[in-house]
Structure formats: structure tokens, C-alpha cells
């Protein structure tokens, strides 16, 4: 039996006190525990950012890669291990700015991974520049007169890109967080979890108070997650009311792995390659 204690890491957790990342960390531990997945039973892959330190703060297989590049790394890992759950954690700059094209393409590829997007609407680790999700008008280190761009909305963007599981959760609602992560891990295919994660140090707009006053649960309003149109309309909702829950889920679509004939012979990482026969390939060249 796995317990959350199994995931305790040796490292001092150096996120700011009160940071929403703690919630993500705890929810992930609880989700894995409840799914009976142990520290050797999954791989967590991160980019660079405050978010990206997560693999060191949890005792779980991990790879801390480069800024913006968690998704393709996670894809490569997933295709090679095949049977292990792979969880990519990215920041919002990480995942939607520098890594924006990987986001779109990972979604449409329907790789069977979970993508936890640490959405703090700011660049945390580099001390407070604007992120792609930063609210229009917010003053940051790089936007002293306020952000002038329309913020990226991860949920509609994922929907448009063909993601088969699109959800939002909020670290201030731990039960919901755990439940959503579990659903994402259980989903076969690319699963985006837009995770609202207050940055207590650099984002004074999207605070716990801000979210506490606004979040509501989609399931309480009879949302049908198989209906793309509904999902899209709800996905755009971001104001006085902010929906949490699964916007959209499509279970029938084959994952990338399902489509690859090369995986039929078992996981790549376990293949016996000691003496590969290529003679039938070379012969026609003679």
C-alpha cells in the first residue's frame, strides 16, 4: 500500500511560504497514493521555473529538463516506457510562451500523458515578469504600464488543439485538485489540467481571495463534458465566475501510442537489442 509519506523527499522545499505550488505537490502525492501508484510507478517531467522544481520536492522518478521543453521530453519518455504514467509539470511561461508550439502539438498528438500547467499568471522564478496568462493591464517588471496583450486562455487553446481531456482545478480546493489529477492520470490520452496556483510573491491580482470569491464547479451546473461547444463556451468564462472541473473529455480517440505499430512488440526500453537482424534490409542493396 502506497502512502503519501512514501513521496516525501529529502530536499528542503524552497518555494515561498504560502505558494500555490505546495498545493499542487500535496494534491499530486494524494492522487498517486489513492491510485496506488508508488514512487517508482510514474515519471514526473518538468521544464524550468518555480513549478519545475517539483520533481525534487517529491520522491518520484523525475526529469528536470529545459525551459519550455517538458512536453516533448515527456512524449519521448512515454513512448519508450509505454506502461508507466508520465506527468509533465510546466509553468505558464514555460508551457504557453517558449513552449507554446509543443503545447499545441502535444495536444493534437493525443500522447497519453498528464500535463499539469502551474498557472500563476506570472514568471515566478525570474522574479515577476509578465506571463502569457497575465491579466491585461497588470503591471510587472517588464510591463510598467500594464500588460497590453490579450491573455492566453489555456482551456480554449487546448480544446482548439484537439486535447481529449481538458480540466481546470485550483489549489485552494484541495479535494478538487486531487480528484482532477486522478481523473487526468486515469484518462487515456493527453490530459491538460490548468491548475490555478497563486504566486504570493509576484501576482497581487490572482490571489487566493480572488479565486475563492469566483470559482465554481462545472459539475454543479450540469455541464456535459462530452459536448465540445459547451466546453468552449465555459472555457471562455473568466471573470466574476471561474469554472473548475472537466470541460471536455473524449475517450474514444486512440492515443499516439495506440497508433504506433512499433510499440506492439512491447515497451522500447525493454527490447532485446543485443543482436538486431537487418540482413533483409541490406540484401536488396547488393
Amino acid at each position: 500500500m502506497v502512502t503519501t509519506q512514501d513521496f516525501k523527499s529529502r530536499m528542503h522545499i524552497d518555494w515561498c511560504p504560502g505558494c500555490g505550488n505546495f498545493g499542487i505537490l500535496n494534491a499530486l502525492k494524494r492522487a498517486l497514493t489513492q491510485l496506488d501508484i508508488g514512487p517508482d510507478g510514474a515519471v514526473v517531467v518538468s521544464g524550468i521555473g518555480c513549478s519545475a522544481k517539483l520533481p525534487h520536492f517529491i520522491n518520484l522518478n523525475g526529469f528536470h529538463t529545459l525551459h519550455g521543453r517538458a512536453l516533448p521530453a515527456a512524449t519521448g519518455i512515454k513512448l519508450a516506457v509505454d506502461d508507466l504514467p508520465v506527468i509533465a509539470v510546466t509553468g505558464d511561461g514555460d508551457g504557453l510562451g517558449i513552449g507554446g508550439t509543443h503545447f499545441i502539438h502535444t495536444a493534437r498528438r493525443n500522447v497519453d500523458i498528464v500535463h499539469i500547467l502551474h498557472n500563476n499568471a506570472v514568471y515566478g522564478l525570474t522574479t515577476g515578469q509578465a506571463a502569457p496568462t497575465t491579466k491585461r493591464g497588470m503591471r510587472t517588471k517588464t510591463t510598467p504600464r500594464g500588460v497590453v496583450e490579450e491573455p492566453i486562455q489555456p482551456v480554449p487553446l487546448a480544446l482548439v488543439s484537439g486535447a481529449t481531456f481538458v480540466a481546470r482545478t485550483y489549489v485552494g480546493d484541495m479535494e478538487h485538485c486531487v480528484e482532477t489529477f486522478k481523473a487526468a492520470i486515469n484518462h487515456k490520452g493527453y490530459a491538460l489540467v490548468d491548475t490555478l496556483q497563486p504566486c504570493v510573491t509576484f501576482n497581487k491580482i490572482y490571489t487566493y481571495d480572488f479565486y475563492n470569491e469566483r470559482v465554481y464547479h462545472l459539475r454543479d451546473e450540469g455541464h456535459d463534458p462530452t459536448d465540445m461547444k459547451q466546453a468552449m463556451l465555459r472555457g471562455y468564462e473568466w471573470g466574476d465566475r471561474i469554472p473548475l472541473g472537466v470541460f471536455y473529455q473524449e475517450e474514444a480517440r486512440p492515443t499516439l501510442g495506440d497508433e504506433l505499430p512499433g510499440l506492439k512488440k512491447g515497451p522500447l526500453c525493454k527490447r532485446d537489442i543485443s543482436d538486431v537482424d537487418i540482413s533483409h534490409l541490406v540484401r536488396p542493396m547488393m
Partner: protein
Amino acid sequence: MTAEVIPEEIYDGEEVKLSIMIGGEAGYGIVSAGDILARAFAKCSLHVAAYSEIPSLIRGGHNTFQICVSTHKAHSLWRALDFLVALDHLTIDLNALNVSPGGSIVYDSDSVKFDQSDLDRDDLTVMPVPLKTLAGEHGHADLMRNTVALGVCVALANYRCEALQGVLREHFKLKGEKIIEANIRSARAGYDYVKEHFPDIRILGLDGQVCGRPHIVMTGNQAITFGALKAGMTFYSGYPMTPASPILHQLVHLEEDMGIVAKQTEDEISAIMMAIGASAAGARAMTGTSGGGFCLMTEALGLAGEAEVPLVVMLGQRTGPATGLATRTEQADLLFAIHASQGEFPRAVLTPGDLNECFTLTYQAFNLADRYQIPVIVMGDRILNEGIHCATRLEDEGLSVDRGKLLSAEEAQEFVEDGHFKRYAITNDGISPRILWGGNGLVQTYNGNEHNEFGDTYEGRRNRRGMMGKRMHKMKALTKDMPPPQLHGPRDAEVTLVGWGSTKMPGREALKMLAGEGHDSVSYLHFPSVWPMDTDRAGAILRKRERLVGVETNFSGQLCDHLASHTGVHIEDRILKYDGRPMTPNYIIQLLKGVMGW
């Protein structure tokens, strides 16, 4: 401390050589026709080398395909043509000057209006052949014009038409018997037309010639692909880019057969990151690209260095800078490949020079990558990657898969502390253990930030020195594992040409041609790897030569600069070429004569 000395082959009897170029508008099957012809000669155990020149566009441009055939060994193309087969007028305009005295120009009299007097020279035979008409009679006027031209070429070479038929049959096997037959008839028509109308054409005496050993003919990309597959590569990710794309094109067809994954990605960053992910997870993984894509991969190359992930990257060079001449050849990325990415970490840079090295060095690249847990760059270029070359066989003797310290869970116990696996354990040889992820009770963390032995980010000063030292220490053993320089030709030659990568082919051909002219005291020193380098050994080898002349397909002589930096030997004389066209033995000889005052 010497170079590996490779004696050049000695054949009985005089060498008979033939060089043919087919040219025409892009989009008319010039390249596949050339390919068929090369295979036809090779089937009969003649040596061939072939190369297509294609501008970066789809149709309407000018394509050429050159084939050089020899009874001995055709290391490379040479410049002089025996026959020029022109499907359009531009072919004659651009290439007539390269036809040797006494050679011939064949042209499609149905499409090209041409008069001998248009030519600035009268030492050539000009042969109009109604290719289109003949094709129309036996198959399809537009589609089979090139097949008729093949028959013409075989007749000109005074070779057996049957040689061609087998290859045509193979080539069109998926198109059905009707198409096959029409092609065979078309080829025969071209063959017969020549025999009938130009009975007196210069005979090269290829007929009946068979080179001693049977051999294979393929592109460098094919040899690289086979080397990778043989080494157990199961994951390839790439983004299309000349001259690397054919590797991906070939592999996607083999996914089921070989049980591999070959994936086109959204860009080169994704390609290398997927390969790094797959490799960290335990699969043998590779990516391939050209200079522009390699630029985008440099950051991840450093990740493989810092996180110690085995990785093979094929860098097929083409003419830069930037998009340059996108479908042409150059060797101008040597120093970039050696120094790419910020910071310092061990890497290996292999520079195969012919088909066999494409195969063996790609294979070895995977062993080096696994053994030292480093990125290994295999450098090609357009002529090596997409040119058609010949080899006796793909040598896999002495090659066996070595996955280095990829431990089983039991073996790994030695490196477990407090239940945590030390992915980056400091060891005597600098190489740390690694394991597969999943279900083994162990947790393993890879990290592209500086880390402690467990892989967790750690910035301590002493730790940093330890980790840098550990990683860089791997260079020591790695250096000994690198393929050493090879000396082709006489050991005590008056002058030694020095080159790397694909230049080996025209370099060796030049030796052969020079010997034919009586200059037999020339050798060629080939570097099949450039980094890391046993600099003492390389320096000693270089200093032992009487005189050194660099040969590189670039502007500045990058290998020469590199050797100067690390061995202290400055090579002043450099034969350089940077016009996007392949180095030829003729060019080397011409410039060498200038250097040597011959």
C-alpha cells in the same frame, strides 16, 4: 603512436572508368533514373559513385545526376564526363565544358533544338536521339523518356542491357507487370537506337568487366540508418531537413517490421527533446537534422551533457550560412558542432568519410553514447548523406552492443542510499550508473541543473567542482575510444593531404588519379573523428609527415584551425571549396599541383 595505416587496394589489370551525367528539368525523374542506372552497374560488381544536384525547388529547375563507374574502386565522383545525356538545353549549356575530349553529348532531339556549332568545341561527338518518340512508341512519351535515356547510357557504356532490366523490374515491382514491361521495352529501344545509329561510338570496354567482389550500393543515409538499426536504435524523431530527411522517410516504413518508433515532430527542438526523453527512459534514441535544425538543438545538446543522457545526433551539413544553398553540400559546421551549447561537457564528434564508416561509426556512436552517457554527433554532408556510394559490405565485425552502466535493479542496489538511487554517483571513471524507470522499487532523477549524486538541484561549490570533474573526466577514456586518424597511401609520402568526413572519398580518388599520372608519393590522412582527440598522437602523426596540405569543403579550413589549436601543428596550405558543389579529385589535383609546383 601512429595513424592507422590503410593500404590502398591493388587491382589486377588497368582501371577502366566511365562518367555519365543525365540532366534535365526538375520533376522528370532524373534522380530515380540515375539511381536505377547506378544500381544496374553495381549489380555487375562495378564500382559506382553518384550524386544528384537539385536546387531547392520542386519543379522547373535544373536537375542533374552524375554517375561514375569503375572496374577498380570509385571512391568518388570525378569532374570529367564521358557522356552527357541532355533532356533539356540547359543541361548542355551548363555542363558541356565538363565533357572530356573525345566524349559525347546525347540529347533528346524531340525536345531540344541543338546544333553542333552552338558548341564552343569540336572534340565531342553529338548524338541526337528521339527519346520522347521512342518512349511514346514503347510506353509513355513523358513518363518514360528517362527510361529510354537509361538504355542509351547502357549502350554507350557498351554494357549488357540485361543488367538494367533486373533493376527496372525491382524498381517498378509495386506498379505491376504492365508498367515493368513498358519500361523494359523503353530501355531496350534506347539501347537499340544507339547500337543501330551510332555503331562507331567510342567503346569504353566496360563490357564483360566484372570487379572481383560483389558489393553493395546505397546512400550514406541508408548506411547510417542501417548502422542505427543494427545498434538497436528503437526511437528516432526528426523534422524534415535536407539532407537528413531520407533517414526519417526510410524509418517510418520500418516501424512495424523493426518494432521501432520514427516520428516527425513540430520542430527540431521537439525532435531532440523526444529523443532525450526516450533515451533517458532506456531506449536507444537518435535524431537527425542539418545546420539550421542543429542550431535549434544546441540547448538540448547541453541538456544531454549536463543530465548525462546518451544521445546520437546526425548532423548532415549543407551549404550555409542560414538557409544558404539548401540542397547543396559543404563541410562548414565542424567547429560549431564541437563547441555548440553553453558551458563545457564531454561529447564525441564522429566524421565518417564513406559508406562503411557511415554504418560502423553510427553503430559505434550508440555505444559511445551509452558507455559515456554523452551526446554523440555523427557528421555527414549532402554528398555523403544523399550521394550513392559503394562498399564491399557493411562491416559489422567487431561491433557489439554495449549499453555501459545501464544497470539492473539488483546491480543498482550498490548505489542506493536511504532508499534513493544515486543516478549521479561519483565514481572512479566518472561514469555513473543508470537504471530503467518503473516497478523496480527505485527512484531515479535526471536533472539539467547542477545536482548532487541523487540528481537533486544543488549549488554547493564543492559539489559543483566534483560534478564538473566527474563529467569531464570521462573525456579521458573516451579519447582512447575514438576512431584514430587513418593514413591512406604511402607512409613516407612527399605530401600528405589532410581531411575529414566526406572529403575522404575524393581524397582517395585523387591519390589513385595522381598515381596514374606518376605522382605516387601522395598520401591522404583521414580524420574519422575530430573530438575528443588524442592530441599527442595526432600531433605526432602530423609532425611525422613531410608536408601537409589541408583539404576541406569550406571557406576557412576548420579542421586545420582545430588541429592547430590542439596539436600545435599549423597547416598553412589549404585546398578549400565553398561553392556548394562537392569536392572532386580533379579540383584537389589541380590545386595540389599549384601548391607543390608540379
